[in-house]
């Protein structure tokens, strides 16, 4: 194989590229991309066994029962039964879904949801438009929770040491222990849980701590959130967090802050950021985003200016900004250091760049934001918020809110933030010293998700009595005496407070599938709380806070999902004395290679590792599935000797089938070493490497087993997210990484259109035009389009879609929403390696520009619903045909699987069922299927339908109501509904008043491959960047 040719000249010749292989124009890439499915895939390496694939596919095959097929009579189909209700639930119409509001809490972050239920089984999660943290959007994790609910590998009964028993046996075991503890005041009793913002749970917890005053409660989250709180604590004396209003911000400086995806409240941020991203408002009112970060995040992808800076240098860049602002005349609160002593050109940032940023922020006082990410130390947060204060942003674009997690504490409502890691270290020491007699772990996994040097898992067994309440067996439950089954959030009651103080209720959509309990229920029973069922606990809590008419109010709260009581507390600036110590404690920018540990975008800290949807979802930036890898930049890759691995042909005998193989490296840091696959990612800071946490789980179900590498084994509790003194050696082994970035390549055609605001404002009509981007002769049909077919697309409702590339952040939530709505199977790593991923909607990620420091572009790509659809012309059996309303229908029952359509599709959006991916589901798993969408069989082609089931539902509803027109906005496809930034708009293009028709008339609107005269119904709004003219001149 040929080496990668990463000549900068080469880069200039291509507008955008998906991978280094494409950029270098290697013959292997051309071969790979020209074949719809990679050649030699059958002989693909033996390290991914077929057995493993079958394991993933049939995660619960062993549980499967034979259903429904009771006796055949002659050639008639099997006898089926209709089982009516005995007593019909009120207002239920079989076949018509019902929707209920509930709340999902993740690491203390509450998001209101609306869940679709078909005859009592939840099938789809949507955002609650009334909830401030959702506004109708959802994250990929929210969408994927449905899969967890029906996972056959959930714990079904309590078990002791691995043998199943009953709750009674547990209470019989636990009650004497707790009776003894009650006598000694709880000496030796320890609770451990994740962060929670539930008022009623807090009440149970406070009661427990009062009943056992000597007991200790450890709140530990593996991914940090206390840095922001500590930073604001220094400024306000309260454990507060910043609440941003990006819609009011026109200049945003994000320092290692992925506020569009991994930071708390990211759904609201995406919505607000998109609102401020309108280029028609002009350079002054369209927001401008400066990002300074060590590794590409989706926020970095949305940036107008992005600088690659090592993680340890980010706080110093922030101080350099403070100095620059001060020298330009801004009065900055005392930061405890002399700003004049700070170098202006900190760590690879030119002083001119800093100057331009400072000028831009200064000229937009009160309308700018400075943000810092959760992986940065508290001192950096303190500086950033001090700058927000100095710039007059506090009160307009930023609010300081007392953290809901802390506001709930009766004893310490606004005191010092808890330090989760310190608490965990203390607990580990207590366990070691034998000071813990009873340990109760509530829905947490510290044995896996904690720094390796604590060896927490090994210490748990020193407690005489230990229990873990968890939904699936994990590393922690494996070492505690008791494993207790936890209810899914869709099976139980609860409540949670969002950052802005809005409280919302969680109600069950289904009775617990197994003999499970909620954390509040177990705690209440162990410690003798007045109520012992989750419903009673929540209801009693709110009844005591509400006056007369509580019943009616309770019903309204449940209906709306929002509690109309209380609100968040603000934190105010009190002085800067403690800031100095935080700032002075900032470590100096590191020298040499540094290794970052960060939560994975999909699995977070590993809690979603057994979720096949999230495992198979490509990482937004790397496009890797089923694995993590050591990410390094191209230059570092060259130094480490891993960029020319393709030259190993003689040594390893690799063929095209090994296209996806990458070298293994041994990473040694903190006295531990890990062998991990390496992946070259453009846009990394020099001398920086990134390894995502959450993979390589040890004790996990069949899905997460063997997926990725456990980065926690390298983590030290002294500096858990950043390590220096890292040694990386190349190993003489290759590892197959299932990356989707070269799948479905469009071979460099100008399908992503992007440019600068100045250019757009000069001539909007020209900006995204065909003449400029894709000059071609006038389109001509081979046939007379007027007489072809029987449909007149100028009449009636005609469906179309517009996707705004300017607000799409590339977060991938739409992909999971589509998967959940349309019963799309997961196929496993081996099949992804063969290019058989089934996602109907994919997010193409393009790099543009310099290979070391490129820009990112995202483009959601799905069936374009061409009016002149090439797929239809080649189907020999008419399995894909047009409908009156302009949809390109896919008729599964006609399809014979020739795959001609897929070959003829220029967008490569058709997916083929190579296997019967759907026949291994257990009865429980079948419950998650959307009954409105056909489950496809082996040998059938499938693709995006514009969610035709939703279109037909709306049409029938309108017709039953006696109307012929469907109101604009009545149909939202699953992708558009989940989109946090509302980038996907669907509607009737024949109605000039519809949102979609207005967007289609917008000058930024363009269709793909227009020269082919396909007339796609989906079109895109070209992306516009808003760079600082002062910086453009420089470059």
């Amino acid at each position, binding site marked *: 194989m040929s080496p990668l040719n990463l000549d900068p000249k080469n880069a200039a010749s291509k507008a955008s590229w998906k991978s280094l292989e494409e950029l270098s124009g290697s013959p292997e890439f051309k071969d790979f991309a020209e074949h719809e499915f990679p050649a030699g895939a059958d002989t693909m390496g033996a390290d991914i066994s077929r057995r493993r694939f079958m394991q993933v596919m049939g995660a619960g095959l062993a549980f499967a029962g034979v259903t429904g097929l009771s006796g055949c009579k002659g050639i008639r189909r099997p006898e089926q039964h209709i089982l009516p209700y005995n007593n019909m639930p009120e207002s239920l*119409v079989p076949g018509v879904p019902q929707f209920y509001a509930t709340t999902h809490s993740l690491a203390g972050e509450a998001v209101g949801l609306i869940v679709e239920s078909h005859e009592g089984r939840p099938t789809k999660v949507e955002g609650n438009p009334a909830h401030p943290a959702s506004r109708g959007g959802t994250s990929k994790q929210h969408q994927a929770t449905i899969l967890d609910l029906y996972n056959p590998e959930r714990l079904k009964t309590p078990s002791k040491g691995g043998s199943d028993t009953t709750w009674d046996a547990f209470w019989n075991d636990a009650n004497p222990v707790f009776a003894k503890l009650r006598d000694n005041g709880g000496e030796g009793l320890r609770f451990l849980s994740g962060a929670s913002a539930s008022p009623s749970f807090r009440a149970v917890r406070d009661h427990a701590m009062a009943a056992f005053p000597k007991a200790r409660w450890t709140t530990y989250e593996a991914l940090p959130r206390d840095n922001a709180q500590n930073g604001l604590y220094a400024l306000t004396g309260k454990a507060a967090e910043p609440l941003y209003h990006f819609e009011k911000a026109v200049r945003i400086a994000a320092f290692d802050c992925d506020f569009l995806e991994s930071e708390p409240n990211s759904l609201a941020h995406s919505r607000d950021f998109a609102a401020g991203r309108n280029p028609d408002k002009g350079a002054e009112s369209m927001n401008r985003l400066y990002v300074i970060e060590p590794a590409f995040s989706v926020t970095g992808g949305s940036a107008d200016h992005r600088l690659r800076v090592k993680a340890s240098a980010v706080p110093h860049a922030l101080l350099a900004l403070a100095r620059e602002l001060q020298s330009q005349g801004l009065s900055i609160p005392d930061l405890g250091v002399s700003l004049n002593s700070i170098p202006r050109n900190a760590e690879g940032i030119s002083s001119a760049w800093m100057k331009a940023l400072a000028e831009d922020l200064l000229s937009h006082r009160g309308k700018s934001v400075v943000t810092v990410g959760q992986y940065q130390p508290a001192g950096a947060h303190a500086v950033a918020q001090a700058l927000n204060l100095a710039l007059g942003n506090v009160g307009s674009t930023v609010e300081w809110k007392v953290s809901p997690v802390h506001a709930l504490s009766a004893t310490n409502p606004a005191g010092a933030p808890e330090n989760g890691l310190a608490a965990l270290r203390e607990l580990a020491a207590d366990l070691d010293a034998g000071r813990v007699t009873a340990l109760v772990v509530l829905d947490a996994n510290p044995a896996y998700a904690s720094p390796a040097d604590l060896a927490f898992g090994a210490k748990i067994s020193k407690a005489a009595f230990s229990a873990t309440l968890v939904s699936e067996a994990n590393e922690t439950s494996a070492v505690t005496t008791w494993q207790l089954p936890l209810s899914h959030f869709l099976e139980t009651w609860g409540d949670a407070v969002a950052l802005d103080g809005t409280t919302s209720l969680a109600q069950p959509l289904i009775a617990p599938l197994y003999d499970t309990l909620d954390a509040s229920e177990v705690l209440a029973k162990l410690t003798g709380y007045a109520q012992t069922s989750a419903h009673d606990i929540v209801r009693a809590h709110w009844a005591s806070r509400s006056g007369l008419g509580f019943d009616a109010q309770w019903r309204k709260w449940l209906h709306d999902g929002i509690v109309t009581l209380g609100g968040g507390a603000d934190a105010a600036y009190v002085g800067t004395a403690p800031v100095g110590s935080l700032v002075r404690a900032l470590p100096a920018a590191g020298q040499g290679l540094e290794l970052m540990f960060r939560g994975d975008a999909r699995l977070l800290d590993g809690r979603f590792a057994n979720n096949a949807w999230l495992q198979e979802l490509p990482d937004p930036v790397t496009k890797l599935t089923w694995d993590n890898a050591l990410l390094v930049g191209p230059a570092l890759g060259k130094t480490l000797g891993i960029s020319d691995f393709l030259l190993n042909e003689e040594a390893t005998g690799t063929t095209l089938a090994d296209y996806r193989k990458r070298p293994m490296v041994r990473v040694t840091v903190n006295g531990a070493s890990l062998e991990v696959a390496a992946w070259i990612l453009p846009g990394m800071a020099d001398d920086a490497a990134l390894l995502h946490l959450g993979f390589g789980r040890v004790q996990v179900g069949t899905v997460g087993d063997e997926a990725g590498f456990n980065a926690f084994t390298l983590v030290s509790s002294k500096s858990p997210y950043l390590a220096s003194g890292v040694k990386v050696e190349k190993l003489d082994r290759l590892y197959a990484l299932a990356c989707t970035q070269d799948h479905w390549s469009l071979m460099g055609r100008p399908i992503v259109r992007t440019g600068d605001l100045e250019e757009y404002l000069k001539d909007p009509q020209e900006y995204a035009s065909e003449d400029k981007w894709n000059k071609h002769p006038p389109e001509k049909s081979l046939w007379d389009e007027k007489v072809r077919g029987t449909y007149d697309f100028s009449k009636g409702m005609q469906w179309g879609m517009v996707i705004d590339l300017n607000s799409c952040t590339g977060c991938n939530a739409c992909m999971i929403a589509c998967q959940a709505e349309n019963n799309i199977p997961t196929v496993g790593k081996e099949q992804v390696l063969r290019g058989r991923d089934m996602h109907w909607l994919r997010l193409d990620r393009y790099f543009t520009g310099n290979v070391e420091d490129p820009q990112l572009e995202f483009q959601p790509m799905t069936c374009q619903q061409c009016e002149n659809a090439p797929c239809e012309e080649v189907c020999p059996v008419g399995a894909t045909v047009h409908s009156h309303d302009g949809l390109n229908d896919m008729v599964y029952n006609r399809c014979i699987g020739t795959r001609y359509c897929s070959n003829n599709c220029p967008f490569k959006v058709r997916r083929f069922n190579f296997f019967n991916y759907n026949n291994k589901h257990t009865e429980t798993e079948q419950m998650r299927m959307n009954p409105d969408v056909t489950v496809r069989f082996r040998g059938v082609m499938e693709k995006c339908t514009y969610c035709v089931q939703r279109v037909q539902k709306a049409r029938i509803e309108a017709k039953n109501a006696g109307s012929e027109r469907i109101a604009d906005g009545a149909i939202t496809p699953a992708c558009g509904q989940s989109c946090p930034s509302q980038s996907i708009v669907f509607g009737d293009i024949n109605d000039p008043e519809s949102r979609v028709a207005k967007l289609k008339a917008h000058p930024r609107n363009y269709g793909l491959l227009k020269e082919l005269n396909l007339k796609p119904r989906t079109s895109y709004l070209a992306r516009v960047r808003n760079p600082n003219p002062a910086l453009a001149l420089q470059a």
Partner: protein
Amino acid sequence: MVFPKWTNKIPLVLLVSVVSLLCFAVFAFAYWGSPKHYFVGYQPVQPIAFSHKLHAGELGMDCRYCHYNVEKGRHAGVPPTETCLNCHKLIKSGSKTGTAEIQKIVDAHEAGMPVEWVRIHKLADFAYFDHSAHVNKGVSCVECHGRVDQMTEVRAEKPLSMSWCLDCHRNPAPHVRDRSKITDLAWTPDGDAAELGREFMKMYNVQPRTDCSACHR
């Protein structure tokens, strides 16, 4: 001469018999393999000897008393057991079957177990039929289910095949009637059904779809 003369006819006879066999095979598949043959007349034994003839025919109960979701949703719905008990709390004995059959309903309700009715009208999993869309547009129950009011035990009357669906979707006029006569299974039009149907089609704005995605999703 090794072969007798009649052997000259063997190729012809073979050809004729193979062709006619093939023709028969095609005919046999088209006839016995079609829903018209294997589905029409399907009359399974139900767990309770419930007579539609008695309830809907002789007693004149409206179809929608039991199948009350027919205008609201995809499924007309088999009534919940409590609906039966609305009357059968008081009526404990039938004129033909005595008390045994009615007792089954009471027992099922008390035991909290559903009655396992045998499904007769069943479309393929990839076909989505919506009762409300048809009933609200003036298509009577009788068009697909036949004279259920005359059936002691319900049997399949129409083939429910795709071509049979399309027959009506392509030419709906003879099958559309006044909405108030939807459940009047004995109703016959005064005059030409198609002409009358066309009037109601205009009134109800009936535009039956023949797009694949109208039924297949």
